[in-house]
């Protein structure tokens, strides 16, 4: 007969009788969380939730106990049960609804702890006591929790003295680290927010430009004395401005789809030489218009990858159009391609305006644009879309530039299809 393994494996029980005990409970929570494979952030979340509820037990019920239990069922979890035999919590419903206005801080720990854990259950009986169960799922890559693992953890905890001073110092350091982290996240959010404002201004500007042409020409054509030639010219201008607007809107929608993970590929075997051929002929008018030289450094070797031909054309086409846009007359743009045992590599380099050191790490982020490229128009979405599409193909994209005025080189690599 197979041995039945109990799925709830008690790790340790800690009594909370003095104020230093809830600090001890916090320390144990941290040690257990680390031993079970939780991330440092989750360690802090668990330790904070446990210490808040244990402190409540001490402050409002005069004490209680904290049981740490490993739940070995799938998905594996850490369960912490904190119980007391105090007066119970009269305003529990109000507290849990978030509408409770605490006169003395009571209840704040409960709602805070609830947000830190995956599951939170509370049972309170007036005059009898309160039981709180906190559950946090182990990370998916955590090692399996076996009775042996739990036994050695129990053993380690029993041999480790609880030192409230050590824990308090540790706690302080944690708070400082958290403050640092919050400061960094805040700065990032601010930067993202500013980039978004610039983006909104750019959208407004870019949409207004073709709109000016459309509305202006419509107003001209309304006049009674418009000749046939002017009428034709106006209609052509309106059509072309409307196309520009449609493309801008497509870009915005595409970026939104990329951001929400709704871009999908139609995969087939694709030879990137064919893609480059097609781009080569498409961009000739722009090349002639801007008087730049376009070079191709590829031998005829097939560059076979698994991908979506339309999207691949979009990726390389965008890099080439960018190069043309930022390269002054008589500059040179070069498309290179090579293949090795594992990868197909395509590079697009130019002798154009280059990318400043400050912008370089951010070129593939949405809404990021250099001051110069803002003057060239566009929304700063192209490279973010390109980078997303490259990743969807399992590829990588990199950029190099020696700085403003010194050109740029974009390199994309895709896994070779065999």
């Amino acid at each position: 007969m197979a041995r039945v393994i109990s799925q709830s494996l008690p790790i340790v029980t800690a009594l909370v009788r003095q104020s230093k005990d809830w600090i001890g409970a916090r320390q144990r929570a941290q040690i257990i969380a680390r031993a079970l494979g939780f991330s440092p952030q989750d360690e802090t979340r668990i330790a904070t939730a446990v210490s808040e509820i244990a402190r409540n037990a001490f402050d409002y019920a005069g004490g209680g106990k904290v049981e740490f239990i490993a739940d070995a069922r799938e998905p594996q979890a850490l369960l912490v049960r904190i119980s007391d035999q105090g007066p119970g919590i009269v305003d529990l419903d109000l507290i849990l609804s978030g509408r409770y206005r605490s006169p003395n801080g009571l209840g704040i720990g409960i709602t805070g702890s609830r947000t830190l854990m995956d599951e939170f259950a509370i049972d309170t009986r007036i005059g009898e006591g309160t039981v709180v169960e906190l559950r946090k799922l182990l990370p998916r890559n955590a090692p399996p929790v076996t009775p042996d693992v739990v036994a050695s953890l129990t053993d380690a905890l029993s041999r480790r003295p609880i030192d409230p001073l050590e824990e308090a110092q540790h706690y302080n350091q944690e708070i400082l680290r958290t403050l640092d982290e919050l400061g960094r996240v805040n700065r990032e959010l601010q930067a993202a927010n500013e980039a978004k404002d610039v983006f909104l201004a750019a959208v407004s500007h870019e949409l207004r430009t073709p709109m000016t042409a459309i509305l202006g020409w419509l107003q001209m054509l309304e006049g009674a004395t418009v000749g046939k030639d002017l009428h034709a010219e106006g209609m052509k201008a309106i059509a072309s401005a409307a196309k520009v607007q449609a493309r801008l809107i497509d870009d915005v929608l595409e970026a939104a789809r990329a951001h929400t993970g709704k871009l999908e590929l139609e995969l087939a075997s694709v030879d990137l030489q064919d893609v480059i051929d097609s781009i080569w002929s498409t961009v000739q008018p722009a090349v002639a218009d801007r008087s730049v030289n376009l070079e191709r450094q590829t031998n005829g070797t097939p560059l076979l990858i698994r991908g979506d031909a339309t999207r691949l054309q979009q990726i390389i086409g965008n890099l080439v159009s960018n190069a043309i846009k930022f390269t002054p007359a008589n500059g040179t743009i070069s498309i290179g391609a090579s293949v090795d045992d594992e990868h197909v590599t395509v590079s697009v380099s130019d002798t154009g305006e280059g990318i400043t050191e400050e912008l370089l790490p951010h070129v593939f982020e949405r809404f990021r644009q250099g001051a110069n490229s803002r003057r060239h128009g566009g929304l700063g979405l192209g490279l973010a879309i390109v980078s997303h599409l490259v990743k969807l193909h399992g590829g990588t994209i990199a950029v190099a530039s020696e700085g403003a005025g010194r050109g740029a080189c974009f390199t994309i690599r895709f896994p070779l299809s065999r």
Partner: protein
Amino acid sequence: MTTAPRALVVDDDVAIRVLVTRILVRRRFVVETASDGAEAIQKLATGAYAVILLDLMMPRLDGVGVMKFLAEYHPDQLARVIVMTAFGAYASSHLPAIPFRLIEKPFDIHALVREVEKCI
């Protein structure tokens, strides 16, 4: 016989250049165009214009650069400038010391003509 007044239209967007040119030609202007600030400065260095229609956001040298050039070398021409922009706030914040006429894109072509008439 009076000679036709000259106008300079500066915008990197060809559709706007053509539109404004047509509007002014119908009002008997002789129109020259420039597709960025650098080209505009070359023209402004050698010729005087009755009216200068100036976009702000342009590659190479933007409209702010053109205004600064005029303030330095041809301050008399500043009163002839009409800034055309989809960025009214940008214009106000970048050109605090220079008075200028402003028309926001998209504009009513009659309003544009009225601004032009104020210049001549």
